[in-house]
C-alpha cells in the first residue's frame, strides 16, 4: 500500500509561502547542460589538452551550482542539480555498481546508440553513488534538494543479463543496493528521493516485479522521507490500480504530452499516493503560457485534492534548449502559485475542477 505522504509533505512548504493551499512544485531531474560543460567533457578525453579530470570535476561543480540556482530562481519549492554529473541514466549507475561491464554502444534507432552494459557477475555495492553530489547540492541550495535515482527494474532490464538465472532476480539484487544507497542519502540529510523507472512503461505486465523491488527499496526508510516513483510514456490503464499497492508517497507521471487523455484512468478507484503531474511538455520547444499550464494543473485536481497534488514537468528537460527549459519551469511555478491563490479564494470547484467559476 501507499506510504504516508501527509507525514512528509509539509517539510517542503517554504517559510514564506504566500498561500494556504500548497501544490508542491518540483522537477523530474535532468536539465540542459551548458554548452561549455559538453566541451569540457570532450576536452578531458583529448590527449593534447591540458584540461584534466580535476578541471572537469571543477566544471561539474560549477555547472551544478549554476543549475541549482537556476532552479531556485524559477521559484521551485524543491530543486535538483539538473543531473549535470550524469551522462546517461543507466550508464551512470552501471559505472558505479560492481558486476557491470561495458562492451560498446548498441543501436536504439537510426544512428542513436546507448552504451548498454552487461551484468557479468553478482551486483555489489562499492562506493556511494550519489552522496557526494547530494551533499554538494544541498550545501549550495537554499531549497530542499530532490535526488533522482534510476530504479532497479530499469537498471536490470536495460542491460544484458549474463549472470543471473532471470532478470527478475537481478532486479531484486539491484533493489537491495538502491535501498543501501537511499539509507546513505537519508543519513546525509536527503528527504526527497525519486525512483525513475521508464522501462516499466514498455513492459507494464511486469508491474509486480517493480512493486516487489520498491518494497525492498523502502525497507527501513522512515516515513519522513518522501519516496516518489517516476514513469513516463506508457499506457497507464495497464498498471492502474496496481500502483495503489506500491509503497511510495508519490507517483510522478507525464500526461501533458498526451493532452491528459489518461487522467480518467486514475480517477477510479481512488488514487492513493500523492500525484505528481507533468504539466509542461518535455519534447516541445515552445514555452507554454501560464494560463495553459493553469488549465493543465486543474486536470490533476480531478484525481487528487490540492493537498495531494505535486506539479512538475512531464519528464527531464535535458533535450530542450536551456532558455526554453527555464521558461517552462518559471511559467510552471507562476501557474502553481496562481492556482493556489484561486483555490484559497474558492474560485476553483474542487469537485469539478475543470468548470469555469
Amino acid at each position: 500500500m501507499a506510504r504516508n505522504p501527509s507525514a512528509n509533505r509539509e517539510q517542503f512548504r517554504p517559510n514564506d509561502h504566500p498561500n494556504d493551499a500548497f501544490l508542491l512544485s518540483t522537477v523530474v531531474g535532468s536539465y540542459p547542460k551548458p554548452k561549455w560543460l559538453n566541451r569540457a567533457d570532450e576536452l578531458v578525453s583529448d590527449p593534447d589538452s591540458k584540461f584534466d579530470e580535476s578541471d572537469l570535476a571543477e566544471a561539474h561543480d560549477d555547472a551544478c551550482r549554476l543549475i541549482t540556482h537556476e532552479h531556485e530562481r524559477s521559484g521551485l519549492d524543491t530543486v535538483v542539480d539538473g543531473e549535470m554529473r550524469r551522462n546517461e541514466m543507466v550508464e551512470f549507475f552501471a559505472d558505479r555498481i560492481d558486476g557491470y561491464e561495458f562492451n560498446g554502444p548498441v543501436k536504439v534507432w537510426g544512428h542513436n546508440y546507448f552504451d548498454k552494459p552487461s551484468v557479468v557477475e553478482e551486483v555489489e555495492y562499492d562506493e556511494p553513488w550519489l552522496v557526494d553530489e547530494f551533499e554538494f547540492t544541498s550545501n549550495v541550495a537554499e531549497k530542499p534538494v530532490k535526488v533522482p535515482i534510476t530504479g532497479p527494474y530499469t537498471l536490470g532490464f536495460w542491460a544484458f543479463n549474463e549472470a543471473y538465472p532471470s532478470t527478475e532476480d537481478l532486479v531484486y539484487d539491484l533493489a537491495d543496493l538502491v535501498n543501501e544507497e537511499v539509507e546513505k542519502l537519508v543519513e546525509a540529510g536527503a528527504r526527497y528521493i525519486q525512483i525513475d523507472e521508464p522501462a516499466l512503461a514498455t513492459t507494464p505486465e511486469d508491474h509486480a516485479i517493480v512493486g516487489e523491488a520498491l518494497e525492498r527499496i523502502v525497507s527501513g526508510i522512515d516515513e519522513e522521507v518522501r519516496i516518489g516513483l517516476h514513469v513516463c510514456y506508457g499506457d497507464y490503464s495497464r498498471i492502474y490500480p496496481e500502483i495503489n499497492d506500491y509503497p511510495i508517497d508519490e507517483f510522478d507521471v507525464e500526461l501533458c504530452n498526451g493532452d491528459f487523455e489518461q487522467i480518467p484512468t486514475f480517477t477510479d478507484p481512488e488514487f492513493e499516493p500523492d500525484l505528481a503531474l507533468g504539466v509542461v511538455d518535455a519534447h516541445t520547444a515552445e514555452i507554454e503560457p501560464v494560463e495553459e499550464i493553469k488549465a493543465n494543473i486543474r486536470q490533476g485536481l480531478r484525481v487528487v485534492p490540492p493537498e495531494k497534488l505535486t506539479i512538475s514537468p512531464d519528464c527531464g528537460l535535458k533535450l530542450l534548449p536551456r532558455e526554453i527549459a527555464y521558461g517552462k519551469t518559471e511559467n510552471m511555478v507562476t501557474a502553481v502559485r496562481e492556482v493556489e491563490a484561486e483555490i484559497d479564494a474558492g474560485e476553483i470547484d474542487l469537485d469539478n475542477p475543470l468548470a469555469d467559476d
Partner: protein
Amino acid sequence: MTERVAATPGLYPLPDWAKETLSDLKGHQKGDLLSGDESEAIVEQYDEVRAEYVDDQLDAGLDLISEGQGRWDDMIAHPLTVHDGVETGGIVRYYDNNNFYRDPRVVDDLGFSGDVARELESARDLVAGGAADASLAATLPGPYSLAALATDEHYGDEAEFQAAIAEFLADEVEAFPAHDTLFLLEPSLVTEPPAEGDESTATDAIATVADATDADVVVQTYYGALGEKLYAHLVDEAGADALGLDLVAGDRDDTVYNVQEFGSTDSLSLGLVDGQNTLVEEAETIAERVEWFESQIPAEGFDRTYLTPNTELFYLPANKYREKLSALAAAAEVLE
C-alpha cells in the same frame, strides 16, 4: 549424413567507427535515415562496412556469408522504407525491444526496387575475392512479417496486401545474384500469428517468395516457439527447405513437440546462440544443443542443419557480435 552449416540471418551491428562516421554524415533525426539514394560519401562508408562484415565472417569461419545489412536503418522493414511507393511515418517500436524503426506507410503500388540486389552484388564480389570455400546467403524479411511491420494505405485488404508484398519480394529475389541460401525472416509468425483459418494466406505469401529462387530457402522464425497449427502449415505449405526455430527464447519444449508431432522440413535451421545477450556461448555447448535437438526428432536425419543465432545480431555491441560468429563456426567444427 546431415550437413552442418554455420550461418547467420545477418543484420549486424555497425562497427564502432562506422557508427560515428555515418551519424556524422547522416545525422540523428528521423529525416536523416536512409532513403535509398544516399550520397557517394555515404555509399563509400557502407562499402567499407560490407567489406568488414565479409572479413569478419571469413575470419570466423562461417560456411555461409551474409551481406550483413549494415544499411538497414529500419531493420527488416528496410526494403519498404527505401521504396518509392512508401512514405515513412513516425518512429515505432520494433517488436518487444528497446529499438525503433520508421513506420512504412504503403501509399502506392509496390513495383520493382532492386535495392537489396545491389547490396548482394557487392557482397558476392567480396565473397568471390575472399578465396575461402564459403557461399553467399541472401536475407529478406518474410512477407508476413513485412506486412505486419507496415501500414497499408493503398491495397485496402489484408490478404491482398500480404500477396502484394510477396510479389514485390519475389521480384526482388529474381534480381539477386547467385546465392546458396535465402533467409526469410519471419518473427511476426511468433509474435502476432495469423488468425485461425488465415494461415494459408501467410504460407502462400511465403511460398511466392520461396518459388522465386533456386537457392535453399530458410524461413527463420524467432522471439519464441511457433503455435502448433501454424507450424504444421509452414512445414507443408511455405515452400521452405528449412524452417528456422528459436531454441533460445520461449519454451523449447513447445518447439520439440511441434517437430515430433508434425514432422519437419528436409533441413532445419536452429537458433542456438542468443542474439540479444552478450554472454557468448561455448562451442561445445552449442554443439551439444544441436545433438540434443536432433536426438529428440524421430527422423533419420536432415539434409542440413543450419547453426544460427536465434535473432538478428544488431542488438549486440560489435565485439560480442564477432565472438558469436566465431562460436557458431567453432560449434560446426566440433560436430564434424
